[in-house]
């Protein structure tokens, strides 16, 4: 049976090329693997080989033709003994000179594409009443969360630097080695790229590692595995594989540890489809979100905060306590302005709300808890009530979480806004070491109060 020979793509990016020369003539016998033509691309001249044995029947594209699109029939291959007329029945398109391809203009994808889970309703994510609480530190909450999940599921284990014998560089894994042994609490050498890749590989093949980064700054050594390996494998495997893994550790500024040890990765990781990202503030957040992260069948980044580790908060004592990922919490109700914050900045926003209250302004404070997915519904509902929104984050302003929050407010509640949304962020500089400069570089309640007063026209 006669078959068309198509213009080949000779590189992943090639769309068209020049048919430089026919090496074989009409009527020539060709063997599979024999060079039949030369094709020129913008990068090189390459030989085109026959894919099958046969006879070159008709040549459809003459030597020297430029802009031949990939997959255009360029000739007909006949079976041995077949007559050239055998090709007559083939649909070869017109033999006319192929026209250069016109770039199709794709409309702004962001405007028309479906928004996906990040925008799905969070109404079904109800947080039940958990009843009785006890005051514990964020550090204890995190440890208890890991211990509870490790008791519940044999496949969960912890690895990281100093997590076992030293009991955690910040003592978050205190006692875990004693209870669970070396197999499930593993000390790692200082080899973040390697051990993170190893943990991702293990997660893909049947276990549920928790990877502790001594601080999230060191996750930069491993960022390729977090993004390219953990976040994308589910998609790239067409859903065959999932990566149930937790990447956790202290994030953001600590106290005077300098530029390389003080930065917020909220916006970095929230940018990545295929990841979930949570950022607890209170002990209850820490316990509930970390437990949910460990149970989640997806890679989850848990952004903790060193300064909060020692802070006490009431936390439900119920053994089943867990929080949904993707649901924000209203920490304080108000009607005049919405303050949106996460992690340590929730406390700063609450202080600002106190100061504002003293001035007769009632601020609603939303603790995001989850940065991806983002609880847009709670934010928008609040904005429609207060008509003003200020986002607060410790990280840098450019392409930060605040940029996202403000965009969402404008996109979804434009008609309700009485003032342009505002961002309060850390200064757009590497964090300085000097005590006075460091203080000046990080958001304070006063900055929030000022942003709100500006919105109110003061």
């Amino acid at each position: 049976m006669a078959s068309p020979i198509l213009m080949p793509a000779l590189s992943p990016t090639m769309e068209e090329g020049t048919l430089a020369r026919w090496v074989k003539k009409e009527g020539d016998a060709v063997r599979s693997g024999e060079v039949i033509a030369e094709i020129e691309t913008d990068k090189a001249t390459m030989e085109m080989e026959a894919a099958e044995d046969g006879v070159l029947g008709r040549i459809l594209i003459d030597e020297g033709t430029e802009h031949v699109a990939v997959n255009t029939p360029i000739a007909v291959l006949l079976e041995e003994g077949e007559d050239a007329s055998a090709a007559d029945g083939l649909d070869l398109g017109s033999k006319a000179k192929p026209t250069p391809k016109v770039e199709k203009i794709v409309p702004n994808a962001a405007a028309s594409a479906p928004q996906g889970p990040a925008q799905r309703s969070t109404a079904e994510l109800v947080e039940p009443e958990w009843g009785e609480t006890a005051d514990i530190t964020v550090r204890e909450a995190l440890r208890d969360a890991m211990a509870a999940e490790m008791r519940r599921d044999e496949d969960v284990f912890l690895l990281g630097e100093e997590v076992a014998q030293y009991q955690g560089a910040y003592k978050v894994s205190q006692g875990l080695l004693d209870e669970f042994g070396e197999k499930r609490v593993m000390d790692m050498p200082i080899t973040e790229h390697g051990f993170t890749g190893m943990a991702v590989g293990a997660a893909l093949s049947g276990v549920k590692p928790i990877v502790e980064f001594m601080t999230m700054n060191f996750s930069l050594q491993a960022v390729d595995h977090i993004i390219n390996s953990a976040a994308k494998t589910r998609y790239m495997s067409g859903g065959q594989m999932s990566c149930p893994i937790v990447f956790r550790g202290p994030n953001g500024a600590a106290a005077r540890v300098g530029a390389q040890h003080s930065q917020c990765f909220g916006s970095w990781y929230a940018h990545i489809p295929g990841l979930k990202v949570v950022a607890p503030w209170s002990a209850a957040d820490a316990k509930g979100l970390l437990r949910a992260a460990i149970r989640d069948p997806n890679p989850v980044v848990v952004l903790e905060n060193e300064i909060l580790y020692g802070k006490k908060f009431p936390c439900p004592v119920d053994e089943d306590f867990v929080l949904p990922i993707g649901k924000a919490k209203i920490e304080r109700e108000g009607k005049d302005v919405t303050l949106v914050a996460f992690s340590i900045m929730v406390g700063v926003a609450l202080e600002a709300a106190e100061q504002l209250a003293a001035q007769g302004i009632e601020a609603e404070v939303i603790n995001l808890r989850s940065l991806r997915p983002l609880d847009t519904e709670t934010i928008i509902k609040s904005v429609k009530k207060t008509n003003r929104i200020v986002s607060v984050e410790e990280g840098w302003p450019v392409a930060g979480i605040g940029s996202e929050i403000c965009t969402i407010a404008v996109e979804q509640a434009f008609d309700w806004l009485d003032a342009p949304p505002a961002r309060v962020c850390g200064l757009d500089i590497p964090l300085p070491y000097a005590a006075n400069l460091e203080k000046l570089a990080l958001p304070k309640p006063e900055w929030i109060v000022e942003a709100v007063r500006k919105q109110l026209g003061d």
Partner: protein
Amino acid sequence: MGSMTDAPNRQNGPVLSKEEMERAYREMLLVRRFEEKAGQLYGMGLIGGFCHLYIGQEAVVAGIGLAMKKGDRSITSYRDHGQMLVAGMTARGVMAELTGRSGGYSHGKGGSMHMFSKEQEFYGGHGIVGAQVALGTGLALTSAYKKDGAISIVYFGEGASNQGQVYESFNLAALHKLPCLYVIENNRYGMGTSIERASASKDLSKNATPWGIPSRKVDGMDVAAVYQAAKEAMEHCRSGKGPFLLEMETYRYRGHSMSDPAKYRQRSEVDEMRQTRDPIESLKAEMIKQGIDESFFKTVDHDVKAVVKDAAEFAETSPEPDASELWTDVLVGE
């Protein structure tokens, strides 16, 4: 060349001349006293954040310093005060950076872990474990590129030696015959993890062997041994034969940083090191044996104390950086 051990070759008389011994003694003592003072200031709240002291490891920088030539570049981790003092940076400038004042090398913007001196060819001061190894290989690339005759001294811990970029660097340096002297400061611990629990490699000096990089294991508590090995290694690098690796067997007396409870080792281990291997005491004993007068030590003690006292006073009184410093130095030209 495989790794060899230790003992400096003293067959042809002493390794160090009288002047070299005196210089080494002075520098080691300066580092020791400087670090003790930094520890005090930290305790007083004048220094914040992370502060990693070099006490115990002085012979490494002093011995290498003796063998370095003007123009040689060096780079290290956050445990960097000793390297800076030996590179010729002033005690005042270093101490004032520790207190985060405008008189510091980075105007207070870097702190203990991040200090640099273009003038003394000191490239930091790096907080990310292992980062300086690739960067230091780049310093050697500059030397090879510009044929400026300088070599690059790259210090890193035995903990850092496990990082992947260390091996990528070895390959690059060997491939391009870069004049790079890698110095592993094996002080036996990376934070709370002993070398046995972190490295399957039992002989770090052999870690660069697959790339054909010659190496030696050196008694890093003996300044003469360090000097002798460094001199030979530097000659190799300088002659265009490529990189060299020295593993310094050393010890840190203090905790990893100021906040380390150091429960991972016995107090007796530290005491024994101090009593039997202390680099300053050992050198002093050797010098006395060679007839150097007691008055020399008195003078040096006195001078060093004065330098450190002056540095501390400067660091306490130097003003905090001006608020306008927040926005400077982010990009060139802005």
